[in-house]
C-alpha cells in the first residue's frame, strides 16, 4: 500500500488536518481527505512535525562499533523522530577523506532508517595542523557541506581562517567545537562553585566564549559562514547575539541536555553526567532557553554521544565524556521549551527541522508539511508522560542522564520519504 492517510493530526501544532502521503511525497493536506486505498493512521490529538534533522550526531562507525553503528544509530534516530542526521567526523579512521565519508553515507542509505549526511573533518586526523581535503569530500558521493573537528577545537587561528575561506568555494560551513585547549587542560566539569567544592578540574566558560568571539570575528573578516556547536554558556549567547546584530553569518546550536541539566548533578560523581562541554549553571540554562526562543541560538542538536557501559561505570575522572540524546531530544525540548511557553510546536519544527536542514543543506529535509513536499514526517503524542527507560533504547549505548526521569511526549511514527521507519513507537 503506497498511500497513507494521517488523520486529524495537529500539523505543526495547529488545527487538526489530514495529511495524505502517496509514495515518497505528500499528496495533499486538508480536512476530510478520502481514505480510499490508503492505510489510515489515526492521529487525533497528536502533533505532526516535519522529520527532525540532527546536525550533530556521533554514529561511531567506523571504529567504535561497540558503542554505536550507522544501523543502531539511525534506528535510534528514527525512534526519536529524526529523518536525517549529520554524523560527526571523529571516527576511527577519522572522516577526513572522500573514502570514509562515502562509506558512512552509503551505510545510511542501505539501512534506510534515516538519511546520514557525513560531516568531514576540517583537519587531517583532527589534529588541527593541516587542512583535510575538504573539496574532495564535498565532491564525493556523500556531498559533504559541513566540516568539523568536533571533539577538538580548531584552535589555530590561521587554520580556522583558512578553513572558513576555503569552504566558500562550495558553500560549505565550518562547525566549531569551541574549546580553548590550554584553558581546559585537565578539565572535568564546569568551573565554578561546584567544581571548587568537588575538587574536579574546571572547564571555564571563557574557554568557550573566547573561541566563539574569535571565530565570529574571523568569519566577519573573511566573509564566511561559521556554525557554533553545542553552545553552553550565557556569555556565549551574548557573543552570538552581538555577532548577529552586526550582520555576521553565524549560526549556533544547543543540546537538549544543556537546556535541562546543571552542574549540580555532578555532585553525584556519576559519570553519566560527564559531557563536553560540561553541564553549566542554572543561569546558563535560563539564558540558553531564552536564546533558543528568540532565535539567537538557531537550532537544537543532540550531540548524541554513545559510549559502552564500561566507559561510564567507573570513577568520574576515568569516564568518557558524552550522553546519548537522539531518543530523548524531542521530549526534553517539549519540557523545557514548549511546556514553559517559550516555543510553540511551529517553533520546535523550526529549531529541530527547518533550520538544521538549511544550515546543513540537507536536500529534501526540513521542508514544509504541504502538498508536493517529500514525506519526511514525525508524529508526536505530546500528552504522553513516562519515565525514561534506557532498556528500550534502539541505540547500542545506554548512557542517558534521564534514566528514571519523567519526560513528556513520545514519538509514535516516523516516515522517511513515505516509508514508515517507526510505527506505534516500534521500529519498522
Amino acid at each position: 500500500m503506497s498511500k497513507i492517510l494521517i488523520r486529524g493530526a495537529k500539523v505543526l501544532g495547529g488545527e487538526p488536518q489530514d495529511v495524505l502521503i502517496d509514495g515518497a511525497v505528500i499528496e495533499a493536506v486538508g480536512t476530510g481527505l478520502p481514505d480510499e486505498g490508503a492505510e489510515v493512521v489515526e492521529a487525533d490529538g497528536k502533533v505532526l512535525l516535519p522529520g527532525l534533522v540532527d546536525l550533530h550526531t556521533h554514529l561511531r562507525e567506523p571504529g567504535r562499533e561497540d558503542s554505536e553503528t550507522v544501523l543502531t544509530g539511525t534506528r535510534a534516530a528514527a525512534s526519536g523522530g529524526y529523518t536525517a542526521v549529520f554524523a560527526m567526523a571523529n571516527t576511527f579512521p577519522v572522516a577526513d577523506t572522500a573514502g570514509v565519508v562515502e562509506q558512512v553515507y552509503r551505510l545510511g542509505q542501505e539501512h534506510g532508517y534515516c538519511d546520514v549526511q557525513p560531516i568531514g573533518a576540517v583537519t587531517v586526523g583532527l589534529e588541527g595542523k593541516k587542512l583535510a581535503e575538504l573539496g574532495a569530500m564535498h565532491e564525493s558521493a556523500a556531498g559533504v557541506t559541513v566540516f568539523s573537528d568536533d571533539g577538538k577545537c580548531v584552535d589555530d587561528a590561521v587554520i580556522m581562517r583558512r578553513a572558513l575561506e576555503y569552504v566558500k568555494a562550495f558553500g560549505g560551513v565550518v562547525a566549531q567545537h569551541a574549546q580553548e585547549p590550554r584553558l581546559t587542560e585537565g578539565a572535568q566539569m564546569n568551573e565554578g562553585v561546584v567544581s571548587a567544592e568537588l575538587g574536579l578540574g574546571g572547564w571555564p566558560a571563557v574557554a568557550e566564549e573566547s573561541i566563539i568571539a574569535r571565530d565570529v570575528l574571523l568569519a566577519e573578516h573573511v566573509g564566511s559562514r561559521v556554525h557554533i556547536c553545542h553552545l553552553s554558556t550565557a556569555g556565549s549567547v551574548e557573543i552570538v547575539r552581538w555577532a548577529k546584530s552586526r550582520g555576521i553569518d553565524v549560526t549556533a546550536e544547543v543540546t537538549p541536555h544543556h537546556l535541562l541539566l546543571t552542574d549540580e548533578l555532578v555532585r553525584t560523581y556519576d559519570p553519566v553526567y560527564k559531557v563536553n562541554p560540561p553541564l553549566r549553571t542554572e543561569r546558563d540554562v535560563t539564558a540558553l532557553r531564552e536564546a533558543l526562543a528568540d532565535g539567537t541560538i538557531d537550532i537544537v542538536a543532540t550531540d548524541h554521544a554513545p559510549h559502552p557501559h564500561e566507559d561510564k561505570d567507573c570513577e568520574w575522572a576515568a569516564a568518557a565524556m558524552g550522553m546519548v540524546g537522539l531518543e530523548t531530544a524531542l521530549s526534553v525540548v517539549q519540557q523545557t521549551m514548549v511546556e514553559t511557553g517559550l516555543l510553540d510546536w511551529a517553533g520546535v519544527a523550526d529549531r529541530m527541522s527547518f533550520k538544521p536542514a538549511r544550515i546543513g543543506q540537507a536536500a529534501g529535509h526540513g521542508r514544509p508539511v504541504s502538498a508536493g513536499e517529500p514525506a519526511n514526517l514525525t508524529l508526536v503524542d505530546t500528552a504522553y508522560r513516562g519515565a525514561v527507560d534506557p532498556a528500550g533504547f534502539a541505540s547500542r549505548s545506554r548512557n542517558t542522564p534521564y534514566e528514571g526521569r519523567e519526560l513528556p511526549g513520545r514519538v509514535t511514527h516516523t516516515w522517511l520519504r513515505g516509508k514508515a521507519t517507526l510505527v506505534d513507537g516500534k521500529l519498522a
Partner: protein
Amino acid sequence: MQRHLISAADLTRDDAVLILDTAEEMARVADRPIKKLPTLRGRTVVNLFFEDSTRTRISFEAAEKRLSADVINFTAKGSSVSKGESLKDTAQTLEAMGVDAVVIRHGASGAPYRLATSGWIDAAVINAGDGTHQHPTQALLDAFTMRRRLVGRDAGIGQDLSGKRITIVGDVLHSRVARSNVDLLHTLGAEVTLVAPPTLVPVGVESWPCEISYDLDSTLSKSDAVMMLRVQRERMNAAFFPTEREYSRRYGLDGDRMAKMPEHAIVMHPGPMVRGMEITAEVADSDRCTVVEQVANGVSIRMAVLYLLLGGNEPAVTHTRTEEK
C-alpha cells in the same frame, strides 16, 4: 555516624566532636606498654592505595593493627585512572574476599564516593584522600591537634573549636587538605582564612565558609594556628607563580613571620614539608610546629574513625570516659 567517611563536610558537629573525644581515648592506648585493643578482632580492613602515600598508609595500618583488625595492603601504583575499570574490578575482588572496610586513596576526585554509592561493594568506605577533593581523616587529625594545643588535652573533651582563628596558607586549588579543613573547622566553629596567590585559589571559592586573603602578613597577628600547605614544585612550571623564591618571599613562613603570630599560636603542616620554600627549617623545627604531633595524632584519629564505623556500640577501650567520671 554514617556508614562511610567520604568527606569532612558529611560530619555534623556532634559527629566530629565524638570522633575527637574517641581519639583521645585511643591516644591513651599508645601510652600503654601493649598498644593493642581487641575491638576489630575478626574484621578485615583493606588499604586500597591507587596513589603513593607511605605516610597515610602506615598511619592507617598502625591504627588498624592497634584495633586488632586483619589488614590487607593493596597498592595499585601507577595510572589506574587511565584504565578506570580497575577500581570497580578491584573493589569487587575485595568484596568477594569478605572485606569489612576499604580505606581508599585515589588520584581521582570522587572515587571513594563512587565506591561507596555505586553498589559495587557493601563494605564501609573510608576516604584516605581523593584527587583534589577531600582527605577527611587529615582534617580530623588537624582539628584534634588544634584542640589539644589551643583548648587543652583534657579540657578539650566535648569541646569544639569555637572562636579559634585558623589560617591555611598555600596551594588551596590543588589541596584536598584545605577543602577538608575548611569544611570541618567551620563545622567546629572556627573562623578560617585561606591565604594564597590568586592563581592557587579555585574559581568558585566564594561559596566556601571562610575568608580569602592574598596577604599573609596581615593575617598572622590574628591567627591561633597557621597551617602551611605543601606546594609542589611542578606548579611553578605551570605558571601558578613566577619563581620559587618569589613564592617563598610572599607566602613562605620564616622566623620573622612566626614572630608576628600570637605567643600561643601554633604552626601546622600536613607534611611532607618542602623546607626553604614554604617553611624555613627554623620554623619547622621550633616548639610551635606540630608536624610530628600531627603524625602521632593521625593514628589516634584513624583508630577512632575505624572504631566508630566498624566497632558497633561496644566501648572503645576498657575504661571509657563516662566510667572515669
